């Protein structure tokens, strides 16, 4: 089976060329997070299948963003474009539900996706995930390192999944052993 073509946020050809050149030369430090991509979301959907109670069917993906934060808002828009009215991956269909960070808890969701670059504000998402026993996934490694989110998914240079085990436990989420053996645990 051929996976669907991945959509990515457009980057100019010149920009990609320069970045590629710098990366090959080892001059470009890896960013803490890159713009969210369709590939990220494919992987996010797969991650949901490795929880102790795998999510299936229609799953509301709570996209947590801050309209006042340009990066976060851009991620939210990119996600809405990727997901459309619903994106089916394997046994589940992700339904986007935008949630502004100041209205956390007001909208039900199957899990939370934390947009990047919220800094200290991300801690609110961690608290909400703990309170509502929801899995939080992000593409912002710093948020997972800080314990604000349980899982980071990054696909820019191969698939990298990072799990903050303590954050996952606090939100009542556990993963299969086979999954934990293949990811980076912090």
């Amino acid at each position, binding site marked *: 089976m051929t996976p669907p073509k991945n959509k990515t946020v457009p980057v100019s050809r010149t920009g990609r060329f320069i970045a590629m050149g710098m990366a090959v030369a080892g001059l470009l430090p890896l960013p803490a997070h890159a713009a969210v991509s369709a590939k990220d979301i494919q*992987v996010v959907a*797969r991650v949901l299948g490795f929880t102790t109670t795998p999510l299936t069917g229609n799953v509301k993906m709570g996209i947590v963003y801050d309209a006042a934060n340009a990066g976060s808002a851009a991620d939210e828009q990119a996600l809405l474009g990727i997901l459309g009215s619903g994106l089916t991956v394997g046994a589940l269909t992700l339904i986007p539900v935008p949630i502004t960070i100041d209205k956390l808890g007001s909208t039900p969701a199957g899990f939370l996706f934390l947009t990047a670059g919220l800094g200290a504000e991300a801690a609110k998402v961690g608290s909400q995930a703990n309170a509502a026993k929801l899995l939080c996934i992000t593409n912002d490694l710093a948020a997972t390192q800080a314990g604000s989110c349980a899982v980071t998914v990054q696909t820019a240079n191969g698939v990298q999944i990072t799990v903050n085990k303590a954050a996952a436990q606090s939100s009542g989420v556990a993963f299969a052993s086979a999954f934990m053996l293949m990811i980076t645990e912090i």
Partner: protein
Amino acid sequence: MSVRTSLGLACTAIVSVALAPCARAQEINYGALSAMFGEPVTTSATGSPQKASQTPANLQIITADDIRRSGATDIPDILRYYAGIDVRTEGALDNDVSIRGYGQPYNPRLLVLINGRQVYLDDYGYTAWQNLPVQLADIRQIEIVRGPASALFGFNAASGVINIITYDPLFDKTNVLNFGIGTHGTYTGSLVSTLNEPGKGGITVQLGGIKTDEFNQSAISYSPPPDASRPYAGNYAVDARFKPTDNTEVTLETTKSVSNASYEGSIFNYSTQSYRIESYKAGISADTQLGLISLLGYTNEAETTYHSSASSTPENDNNQIYVIQLNDLFKIANAHAIRLGLEYRNNRGSGLLFAGTLHYNNFAADAMWNWQISPSLSFTAAGRIDHLEIERDDPLSSADIYTPADYNASNFTTPSYNVGVVWQPTANDTFRFLTGRAVQAPSLLDLGFDIQIPEGPISVVVAGNPNLKPSISTNYEIDYDRQISPIHSILRTAIYYNISQDFMANASGLPGHFADGAYQFYSENTGNGQAAGGEMGLSGSNDAGFRWNASYSLVSVRNKTPFGPPSAPANFNNATPTSAIDFGGGYSWHQWETDAEAHWQSNYENNIYSATATGTVYTPVAVANYITASARIGYTVNSHVILAVAGQALTQANQNGFGAPQPYRRVLFSATFTY
């Protein structure tokens, strides 16, 4: 307590433990893990699931797409076009596969498994490829491990491992019907059907077979029975997996295969062999607070009947193996994966060739430690120790110098290990630094062959040797892989140096001596060897539908044996071509799919066997360098039907030398229905 009773009690105990309530779920779901990481996932390097690109082993994965596009009807014809692999095709259904040198009929140095169950046969120590109970349409991936891998897989992973992974009926639905008709009276058919409720339980039934013309055997000194001109092979497998609780998975499997075809034996002799092989497997895995615990038990029962010119009556042997494996795989301190294992195996040979029954018990303990030092650096160390004890109660031939007491006093204990460092300094570059020590156990017939033939006033005794030492293969290797994104390709390179000690050969292939009124032939350790070489290959594909591959393989073998010419089974110096080049490409366009592969190899030396009044004579035959090729064109009629035409051995090259049977060009038309 009998072996079967022990197996049952052990299973009951573990099932009781595993069914205890636990908080976690899930076993190793290859499909979901591969889909998530965007590349094949394997457990063949460490026993722990890993991305194929990060394994501490020289591992290559052949995917289901690769298999379909090959147009092949058997696995050796797929493996033929991969670097470091040498395939000898000696009959229409007879192939021998070796990795990195030491090519030989009945190659004992390559361990072959299906879903972790050994399909390697321990009687002679080889794999009867035509009897593998698996349909190509049900294979998720074929995993090739180049280099010793005994620390994980145990005996006989001396030069490498082929681990065949099928689709999982617990998660995957495979419903495929395939028919083929081709030249040389070739008929093939297979059916794979799955009934499942994904994630809860499923069962896959598969069956298939092939019938075709045998190669022209007029040049060899062998008079095959009449039915040998139309060899056939057929098999079925039933694989059921279900989850009695959220955290446990149970596997039950049974297989059977039969075949009748001409084969070249370990001493280059031809005979027509009839196989009947059955297997039964039961396993349970549980995701517990103590890790992923798995218990696997299986038994293989193989009955082989040999119709040879040398004997007016068919000879037969039986081989039964009983295996129990207990493993625990867990993670500690975030970055350390540990696997602990115990294994017991009882392996027995009986029948005319054994003059009774011989068996051995092997007890093994193993451990693996994988330390992810940083995201770009990992260290893996795995070790295993085996203790083997031979038992024989039946009397031996009167002229045999060994007695049952000699066998019962015989045992050995030997370690094996694999150590690897994987360093990925960039997202595109991977270095592997590997070393390993593997053990090739004496085959049951190396140990316990026992035939005494009266020749007038004297006798000829052909017998095993309970004092054989296991052969040890030690390997040192550096690999470098580079993703070359601008051309959508990956470059894979490897260099290695291998030392092999104490090769073994069975009695019928070695010189004998006259003593005590009898000509006596015994199995022996036959010397040591070194192999040095490497592989370099580039493969890739692009979104335009093109795919390509090219590789070069080099292996230089030097071996010393106390047995001078003509003891061919003990001489590997020219047994494998020094150089080989594989190259191919393909293109997908709308409903069309076209692919072609070619394999060139330098010269090597084959041997022609003949039996004379004074013993076995081997005539060396130089086989000149040759090129062989295969191709396939497929047309997807709709989502349910694919029509294809494929050709194998298209160049009709002389692959085995003058006086030996040669592969013929075969063209096969096939229709595949997916439902």
